[in-house]
């Protein structure tokens, strides 16, 4: 059917919370029918939030045609660009891109967009008329909204009235064949310019400095700083400190941020959207879990989801509200990036157990709005005096901290009468209002006595240390850990599915922590264990203090019982403290429990004794293969001191959340600055011969052992990129029909199980691959022995390893020799494809604006070197081979020490934390992702006790890679010197193609060996255009005058206040960026023609310098996207007017037009649905670009795919399969 909406863009004052924080320059989309109403309401209520001031959410069904009449009341041209939709780019792109006519609306004018919506999901819309990232931009000020597309045949009603609605962030969705569900629009956004009620920059009362940037949900945020002021002034809870009551409705009443309401068991779709501009946030939703891919019932289970700017997910909690155990109460939903959480990026999912007809009140007298029961669900009982329902049976006192739960605290209180009426019959400590363990008949009960203690932790051999490390530890280990007999490590508890877990938690922390260079004096007087994934009673076992729930933490010296049920095999469940996390999580307050398959036994890998905890164990099972299990918990904001007690990377002032401190993994790090060795050659930084083994975790196994790596992030704010070199795993742990990966983006609280086997002996490097992480020591090894060692039991279901015949290698202080023989990992008769590759210095021109890297280093095929040296502007090396081929790489270095920009060994820009001497290496190597090779010879890096795999000038190093699988895009990069090489261009891409594929030049049709743009021809497959995008972000460029370009600061269209210039961006935001050694920075265009709306126009500026890919309507297209270099800020990739499967190996996977969480090591294949021009084959220009307004798009990370209507001389027409072709 056809749906019509009249949408207006208006300027509006957005009041962000009840404290009156506001954005005076807000811009929002609103339905015309609400325009006057919202303007009037805002005028009448200048200091309080107005409900109608919310991101516009409208709805349609799959198969609908949606007509948007867009009216622009902003004083410059704006528009609505819709993701996911099918539309004609000539009139409905909501942009002015390439040679398309502009589909922006001029001030005061209207334009009509026609969209077809053909798959379910979130069709986010944003403005592209003004891509400025500064505070004057449009997106940052609120110009985003959503079209939620529902299953065909759906209709929707207002959750309060039950009547029809035309827009709104909440709706109840109904369908004749499907369950009704609550739809909650949850739109994260960040960096919105904000003033406090007095019109000044908001201050943090604890530091008296400016508050963190705004991190909000649906134009609301509820900062701790505002609430703390009420404590400080004695208005409420005078005994409170701050963070522990931040989410407490007993103290403050409900927050201004979203309260998502429903009844126990209600089905839900939470539309998680990132409408903001910069950060990759992590949504965590207490109590609930969901399938990572809503369309794939076998996908990974999540309870935390990272989301990058302008991307989205649908969160469908398993079992509906309250999850399997049927919990009631307040489940907090928040960005888990702790500084964001602290500054207000949170809300509550309120699960009622009684009917709300609009007559009830909260304990503070605030009326509870009516909530219609879903029509296909049983009506909840009405509240009665005896059974008033949540929250009115909880014996709290207004203005005071929430009460402690009944029963749970040792020596604590019994239930009140109302509590007893609300409780389950067998109420017991830790399970009072639901009984999660009753889900099983007679579950195994496993009890752990856990304490939180404080102790100094030394992170590395150089003595970097945290004097007030805080860790969870089993009570039986406290003495050993405190006395130094046991190394402090994150607590990892092991259990099997179907276990009832009981935690007796004792708070053994000192009540007060003194001030330091990093932090102010803080009274962390109560703590708890907040748990993820498992099933529990949120009211009493949340280990938190949320909404109208109890405060389920304990004071110093007290013990509390929590009870959880691990219903099924899960990956590792994260736990942490929820009371003072922003103060001490970065000191180590995190741990995990791993839920193994039922009937698994856990053994100490060295002694074979049964254990129930430990970061590294051996798991044996009677039916499934035994495996080695290792937990890696990465952390940032680690507040460390050097051995002399000097703080490392202290913030500008104590208490600042502006990226203080360093990094760790399992409370250890191994910085590369300490691993130069005698020769001072970075190429051997990872070599255990030169430097001995790293102090970071080394997973021991025998050749051929299955392993499971449990990847978690324990602290605190940043994205990290985990990679294992030489191994790979299936993207969805429970589903074999998924793609291979060897890299995983992670944010705090996320948890991934990476399951694989280790095919050959040798040392495999695991890294958090971004430059700053790796530089500061986030790497370690997986070591597979080929012969027996006395510190590792063999797996019981495998042949025992052969007895040791050679001694284990020892550090020598000298670089290792090269391997004498490079064995081929492929079958003996495999075709061998040889590439002779040279790495050499060559200035690269990055744009037509004469932006250059005068010190570029490129990889090129030997036969192409001359052309490039003669002036051909290089592109990243892109090579291909087919499944079944063995690839032989012969690599040589032509690098010269004096050709490097910083031969003194201090690389100033783009910067990293803990700058140190690290002179350029003239050696080179080439590491490949996802292919099959022996890491002892062909990993392209010199790691652990493996032989040397780098080439000095004049030498040749040979690698052999077997393409055992058509895995598609694989990043290639150098591993000899991540500081002096990568920013200069030492990366490329390898593509593993289908068997029998030829690669043709799109212009001449001749076969080619390299290039980003080819036609794939295969007798069994359609001719397909392959467009390769090598996304990079840490480049160091100079402008046409030769002056250094300091991106992104120099690229900001709206300019930068000189005062802010130095601390506007984080270290890892720095560097120039784009695709394939090219960039198209909009600032150049603006200077030439200062008209914002024209910045993407090829009619005004000609085509951008970034790759222009061309096709004819309907041509099959596969985009290969890799990000081999190198910063930690995650990106989103979006292609206008097209979409693809989330997983190219799973046709049932979700359909999307965005790919988020792109960070170093990301490699993805995007076969576009329906080919060029999508379903309707519309010709025109389609932008591909980053979704990050801050700071990618204006800094040049965008380009064009051009779909030609008519035949072009330089572009051959793809071959149609001819029915006579194969006749004999």
């Amino acid at each position: 059917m056809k749906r019509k909406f009249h949408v207006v863009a208006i300027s509006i004052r957005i009041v962000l919370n009840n404290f009156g924080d506001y954005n005076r320059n807000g811009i929002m989309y609103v339905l015309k029918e609400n325009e006057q109403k919202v303007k009037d309401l805002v005028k009448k209520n200048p200091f309080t939030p107005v409900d109608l001031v919310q991101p516009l959410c409208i709805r349609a069904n799959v198969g609908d045609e949606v007509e948007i009449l867009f009216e622009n009341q902003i004083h410059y041209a704006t528009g609505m660009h819709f993701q996911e939709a099918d539309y004609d780019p000539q009139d409905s792109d909501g942009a002015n891109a390439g040679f398309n006519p502009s589909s922006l609306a001029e001030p005061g004018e209207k334009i009509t967009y026609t969209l077809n919506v053909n798959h379910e999901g979130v069709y986010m819309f944003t403005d592209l008329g003004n891509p400025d990232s500064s505070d004057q931009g449009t997106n940052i000020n609120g110009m985003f909204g959503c079209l939620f597309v529902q299953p065909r045949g759906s209709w929707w009603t207002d959750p309060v009235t039950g009547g029809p609605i035309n827009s709104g962030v909440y709706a109840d969705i109904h369908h004749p064949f499907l369950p009704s569900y609550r739809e909650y629009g949850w739109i994260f956004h960040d960096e919105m310019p904000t003033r406090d009620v007095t019109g000044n920059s908001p201050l943090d009362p604890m530091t008296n400095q400016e508050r963190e940037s705004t991190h909000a949900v649906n134009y609301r945020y509820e900062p701790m700083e505002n609430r703390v002021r009420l404590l400080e002034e004695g208005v409420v809870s005078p005994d409170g400190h701050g963070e522990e009551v931040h989410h407490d409705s007993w103290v403050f009443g409900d927050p201004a941020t979203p309260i998502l309401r429903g009844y126990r068991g209600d089905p839900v779709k939470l539309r998680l959207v990132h409408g903001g501009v910069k950060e990759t946030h992590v949504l965590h939703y207490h109590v609930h879990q969901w399938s990572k891919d809503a369309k794939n019932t076998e996908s990974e289970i999540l309870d935390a989801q990272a989301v990058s700017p302008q991307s989205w997910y649908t969160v469908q909690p398993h079992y509906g509200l309250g999850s399997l155990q049927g919990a009631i109460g307040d489940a907090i939903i928040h960005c888990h990036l702790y500084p964001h959480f602290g500054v207000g990026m949170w809300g509550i999912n309120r699960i009622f157990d009684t009917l709300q007809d609009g007559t009830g009140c909260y304990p503070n007298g605030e009326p509870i709005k009516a909530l219609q029961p879903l029509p296909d669900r049983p009506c909840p009982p009405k509240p009665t005096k005896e059974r008033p329902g949540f929250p009115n049976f909880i014996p709290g006192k207004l203005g005071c901290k929430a009460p402690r739960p009944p029963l749970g605290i040792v020596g604590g209180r019994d239930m009140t009468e109302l509590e007893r009426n609300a409780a389950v019959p067998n109420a017991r400590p830790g399970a009072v209002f639901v009984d999660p363990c009753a889900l099983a008949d007679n579950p195994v009960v496993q009890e752990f006595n856990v304490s939180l203690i404080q102790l100094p932790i030394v992170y590395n051999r150089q003595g970097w240390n945290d004097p007030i490390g805080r860790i969870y530890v089993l009570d039986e280990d406290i003495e050993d850990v405190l006395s130094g007999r046991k190394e402090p490590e994150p607590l990892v508890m092991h259990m099997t599915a179907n276990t009832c877990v009981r935690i007796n938690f004792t708070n053994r922390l000192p009540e007060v922590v003194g001030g330091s260079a990093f932090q102010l004096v803080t009274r962390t007087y109560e703590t708890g264990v907040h748990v993820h994934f498992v099933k529990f009673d949120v009211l009493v076992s949340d280990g938190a203090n949320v909404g109208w729930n109890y405060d389920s933490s304990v004071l110093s010296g007290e013990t509390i019982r929590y009870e959880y049920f691990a219903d099924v095999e899960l990956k590792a469940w994260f736990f942490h403290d929820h009371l003072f996390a922003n103060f001490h999580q970065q000191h180590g307050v995190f741990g995990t429990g791993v839920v193994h398959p039922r009937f698994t036994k856990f053994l100490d890998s060295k002694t074979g004794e049964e254990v129930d905890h430990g970061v590294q164990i051996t798991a044996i099972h009677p039916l499934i293969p035994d495996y080695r299990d290792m937990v890696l918990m990465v952390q940032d904001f680690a507040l460390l001191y050097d051995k002399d007690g000097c703080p490392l990377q202290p913030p500008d002032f104590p208490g600042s959340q502006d990226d203080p401190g360093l990094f760790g993994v399992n409370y250890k790090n191994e910085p590369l600055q300490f691993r130069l060795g005698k020769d001072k050659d970075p190429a051997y930084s990872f070599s255990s011969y030169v430097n001995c083994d790293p102090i970071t975790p080394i997973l021991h196994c025998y050749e051929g052992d299955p392993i499971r790596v449990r990847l978690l992030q324990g602290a605190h704010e940043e994205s990290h990129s985990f990679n294992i070199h030489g191994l790979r795993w299936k993207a969805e742990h429970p589903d074999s029909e998924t793609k291979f990966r060897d890299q995983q983006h992670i944010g705090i609280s996320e948890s991934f199980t990476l399951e694989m086997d280790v095919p050959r002996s040798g040392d495999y490097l695991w890294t958090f691959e971004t430059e700053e992480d790796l530089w500061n020591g986030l790497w370690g090894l997986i070591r597979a022995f080929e012969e027996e060692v006395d510190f590792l039991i063999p797996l019981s279901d495998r042949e025992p390893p052969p007895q040791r015949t050679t001694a284990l290698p020892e550090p020598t202080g000298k670089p290792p020799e090269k391997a004498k023989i490079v064995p081929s990992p492929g079958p003996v008769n495999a075709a061998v494809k040889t590439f002779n590759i040279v790495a050499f210095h060559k200035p690269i021109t990055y744009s037509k604006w004469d932006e250059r890297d005068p010190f570029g280093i490129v990889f090129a095929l030997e036969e192409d070197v001359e052309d490039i040296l003669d002036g051909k502007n290089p592109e990243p090396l892109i090579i291909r081979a087919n499944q079944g081929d063995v690839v032989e790489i012969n690599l040589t270095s032509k690098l010269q020490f004096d050709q490097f920009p910083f031969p003194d060994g201090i690389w100033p820009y783009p910067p990293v934390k803990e700058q140190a001497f690290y002179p350029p290496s003239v050696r080179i190597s080439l590491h490949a992702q996802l292919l099959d090779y022996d890491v002892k010879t062909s990993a392209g890096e010199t790691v652990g006790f493996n032989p040397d795999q780098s080439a000095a000038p004049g030498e040749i190093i040979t690698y052999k890679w077997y393409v055992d699988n058509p895995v598609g895009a694989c990043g290639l990069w150098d591993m000899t010197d991540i500081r002096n090489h990568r920013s200069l261009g030492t990366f490329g891409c390898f593509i593993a193609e289908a068997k029998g594929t030829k690669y043709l030049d799109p212009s001449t049709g001749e076969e080619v060996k390299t290039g980003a743009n080819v036609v794939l021809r295969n007798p069994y497959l359609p001719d397909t255009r392959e467009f390769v995008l090598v996304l990079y972000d840490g480049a160091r460029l100079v402008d046409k005058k030769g002056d250094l370009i300091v991106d992104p600061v120099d690229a900001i269209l709206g300019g930068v206040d000189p005062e802010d210039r130095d601390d506007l961006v984080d270290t890892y935001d720095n560097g120039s960026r784009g695709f394939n050694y090219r960039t198209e920075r909009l600032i150049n265009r603006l200077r030439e023609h200062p008209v914002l709306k024209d910045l993407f126009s090829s009619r005004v500026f000609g085509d951008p310098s970034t790759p222009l890919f061309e096709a004819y309507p309907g041509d099959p297209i596969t985009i290969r996207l890799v990000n081999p270099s190198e910063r930690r800020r995650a990106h989103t990739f979006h292609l206008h007017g097209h979409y693809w499967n989330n997983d190219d190996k799973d046709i049932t996977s979700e359909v999307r037009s965005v790919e988020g969480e792109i960070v170093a090591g990301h490699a993805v294949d995007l076969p576009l649905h329906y080919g060029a021009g999508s379903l309707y084959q519309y010709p025109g220009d389609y932008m591909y670009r980053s979704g990050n307004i801050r700071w990618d798009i204006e800094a040049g990370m965008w380009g064009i795919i051009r779909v030609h209507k008519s035949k072009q001389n330089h572009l051959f027409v793809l071959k149609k399969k001819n029915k006579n072709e194969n006749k004999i």
Partner: protein
Amino acid sequence: MSHENNIAGMNFPTVNVIHDQALVETFVEGIGKNIFILTPSYPFVFIGKLVDVIEDQAVVDVKVTSISELENRQWFIHIHQIEVYYIQQKGMPRIPELKTNF
């Protein structure tokens, strides 16, 4: 065409054959009625009128499937690929209609 239990050439029909044939008979009896069909194969759902049964194929005048472009046409649906179905009966619930104008 025959819907008799005449399983040619098999003296001892297996229980699977009996089930399969009985299912075909059920469809034959349902000719003329409205039917709802779920199958694991694309496009997953068919709603319409059962107009004929040809050997083990149900012929359905499909009014609704998940893809609007594939509606209002006859589909031959292999009865033995159907995972679950409902042939509308008197005294039992009607097959709901998808609202198109809410």
